[in-house]
C-alpha cells in the first residue's frame, strides 16, 4: 500500500504522546508475556503450600496465592493467554468482517440486503448465551472461547467495512479499473479493500481489548480458561474472595487488564484519527 500514507500516519502518531506511551506499555506487556514465565524460577502451576499467600517480596515478586503458586509467573502466563485470545479473535473478526462487509457492499441490491440482515439477526443473539451454549456442547477451552467470541464479533467490522466500501464503490478509479476489464474479485481485492485499510486497522485495534475483556469475563464466571491454567479472568476470580486479606492476588491481574484495555483503546483511537483519510493533508 501507499508508503507515504503509512509514513505520514506514523509521523502523526509519533506526535501523539498518549499513543506512544500506550504502544510502549503494550510492547512491554508482550515482552513480559514471552519472557516473564521464563525468568521466574517457578512454573505457573507449581504449588508451594508452605509459602501460601505470601505478600510481594524478593522471593515472590507479585506474592503467591492460597496454594503458594507464584503470582508473577501466573500473571504473565495469563498475559500469554489473554493477549493470544485477544489478537487471534480480532484477526478472525477482521478476516470474516472484511470479506462479508466488502462483498455485501460491492454486490449491492438484494444480495447486500440479505447479507446485512443476516448479520443483524446474528448480532441480536447475546454473546453470553452463545458462550454458555458452546461450553455445554464442546466443554470449556480456548477453542470454545474463540468460537463464542468470533461467532458474533465480526459483525461490527463487517458493518464498518460495508460503509467504507459503499463510500468508495462509486469512485472514478473503480470505474476506470472496471472499464479496463478487471474482474469483480480484482476490483474487490486490489482496488476497494486496500483503500479502506485505515479504518480496518483502527477498528481491529479497538477489537482486541474487547476480545481480551470478553475472555477475562468468561474465565471470571468460570466458562473460560480452567485452573490450574491461568488467565487474567480466572486470576481475578481467584483473588476476589481474598481481596480484604491478600489484596495483591486481585490487584496484579486487574492492573494488567486495566493497562491493556487502556493502552489498546488509546492506541486505537489515535490510529483511527491518523488513518482517517478524511483527516489527511
Amino acid at each position, binding site marked *: *500500500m*501507499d*508508503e*507515504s*500514507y503509512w509514513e505520514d500516519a506514523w509521523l502523526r502518531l509519533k506526535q501523539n504522546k498518549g499513543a506512544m506511551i500506550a504502544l510502549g506499555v503494550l510492547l512491554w506487556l508482550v515482552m513480559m508475556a514471552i519472557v516473564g514465565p521464563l525468568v521466574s524460577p517457578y512454573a505457573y502451576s507449581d504449588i508451594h503450600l508452605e509459602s501460601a499467600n505470601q505478600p510481594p517480596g524478593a522471593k515472590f515478586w507479585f506474592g503467591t496465592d492460597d496454594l503458594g503458586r507464584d503470582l508473577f509467573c501466573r500473571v504473565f502466563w495469563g498475559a500469554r493467554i489473554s493477549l493470544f485470545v485477544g489478537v487471534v479473535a480480532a484477526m478472525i473478526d477482521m478476516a470474516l468482517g472484511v470479506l462479508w462487509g466488502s462483498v455485501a457492499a460491492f454486490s449491492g441490491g438484494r444480495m447486500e440486503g440479505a447479507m446485512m440482515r443476516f448479520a443483524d439477526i446474528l448480532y441480536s443473539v447475546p454473546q453470553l448465551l452463545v458462550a454458555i451454549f458452546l461450553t455445554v456442547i464442546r466443554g470449556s477451552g480456548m477453542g470454545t472461547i474463540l468460537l463464542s467470541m468470533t461467532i458474533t464479533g465480526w459483525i461490527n467490522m463487517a458493518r464498518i467495512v460495508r460503509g467504507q466500501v459503499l463510500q468508495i464503490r462509486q*469512485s*472514478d*478509479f473503480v*470505474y*476506470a*479499473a*472496471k*472499464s*479496463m*476489464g*478487471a*474482474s*469483480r474479485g*480484482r476490483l474487490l481485492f*486490489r*482496488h476497494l479493500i*486496500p*483503500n479502506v*485499510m485505515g479504518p480496518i486497522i483502527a477498528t481491529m485495534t479497538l477489537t482486541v481489548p474487547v476480545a481480551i475483556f470478553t475472555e477475562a469475563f468468561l474465565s471470571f464466571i468460570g466458562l473460560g480458561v480452567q485452573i490450574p491454567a491461568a488467565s487474567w479472568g480466572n486470576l481475578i476470580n481467584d483473588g476476589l474472595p481474598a481481596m480484604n486479606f491478600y489484596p495483591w492476588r486481585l490487584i496484579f491481574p486487574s492492573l494488567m487488564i486495566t493497562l491493556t484495555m487502556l493502552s489498546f483503546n488509546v492506541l486505537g483511537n489515535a490510529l483511527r484519527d491518523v488513518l482517517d483519510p478524511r483527516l489527511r493533508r
Partner: protein
Amino acid sequence: MILDVKNLKVSFPLRGKVIEAVRGISFGVEEGEAVGIVGESGSGKSVAVQRLLGLVEGKVEGEAWFEGENLLQMREEEWRSVRGVKIGMVFQDPLTSLNPTMKLGAQVMEGLVFHGLAKRHEGKQQALEWLRLVRLPDPETRFDQYPHQLSGGMRQRALIAIALACHPHLLIADESTTALDTVTQAQILTLLKDLQKQLQMTLLVITHDFGVVAEICTRILVFQEGKLVEEGPIDQILYAPKHPYTQMLLSCVPKVPNVGPVLSEAQNPERQIAANAGPVT
C-alpha cells in the same frame, strides 16, 4: 464501420417514474475516424457512451454493433474481453481516476497482466514503453511512484497510457481534458491527436467544449436532451450549423477579438508549446 449504434435508448426507473437519459440515438463511427460528441451537461452523451461499455446500469434498448458483436447484449464475462482490450476509456478527472494505493507502473501493467497479454516482466517493459509514448517525463522513476506524487497533467498522461495499454481499437475520451488547465489541456489534446495517427486507432471524444472537438475531431455529433440533433463534418458544424440548438451552443463560445499578433499567438498555446517543446507538466 467499427461502431454502429442503432436507436439506443437508456432509461432509469426512479421512484415510479422513468428518467429517459438517452432517447433513441443512431450513429456510426468509421475505423480510424475521430468523432466528437458535444452537448451540455445532462444531454445524455456520457450515459450513452458509458452504457456501451456496460459501466452504467439502467434499462437499455436498441443495438450497438462493435466488430460484429452487439455490445448491449453482453454478459459480464463477455464484457471483460471487450473492456480495455477492444475499447479503452479515458476518464474525466485525473485526480480521482487513479487508485491512490497502487504504484503507477502497476496500474499501467494491470490490464496487460490480467488479460493475459504479458507476463510480469514483459509487462513492465511494455508499460514503460507506453509511459514513454504518452510523453510522461522520466518514466522509470514515475513507474514506482504513487499517483499523489504526480501532477494533474502527468496523471492524465498516465490514464491515457493505462487505457491504451492493451491496444484497444477504439479509444473513448470522456471529458478527458475538462479538469485540466488550458495549457495542459492543449498538451493532452495534441497527445491524443498524435497517438491517434501513430496507432491508427479510432477516437470518440465526449466534451462540452467546442475548442476540444475543433482541435482533434473530423466529425461532430450534437446531443440535446438525449437525442442526436445534428451530425456532420467539423467545418459544417462549426461554420454552418443548421440546428438552432447547435447555433445556440456555438454562440456561447466566447470570441476573443483579434487585436494583434501577440494575442493571436497566445490564443493557441498548444502550437506554441509544440513548437518550443517546452517542459511538460
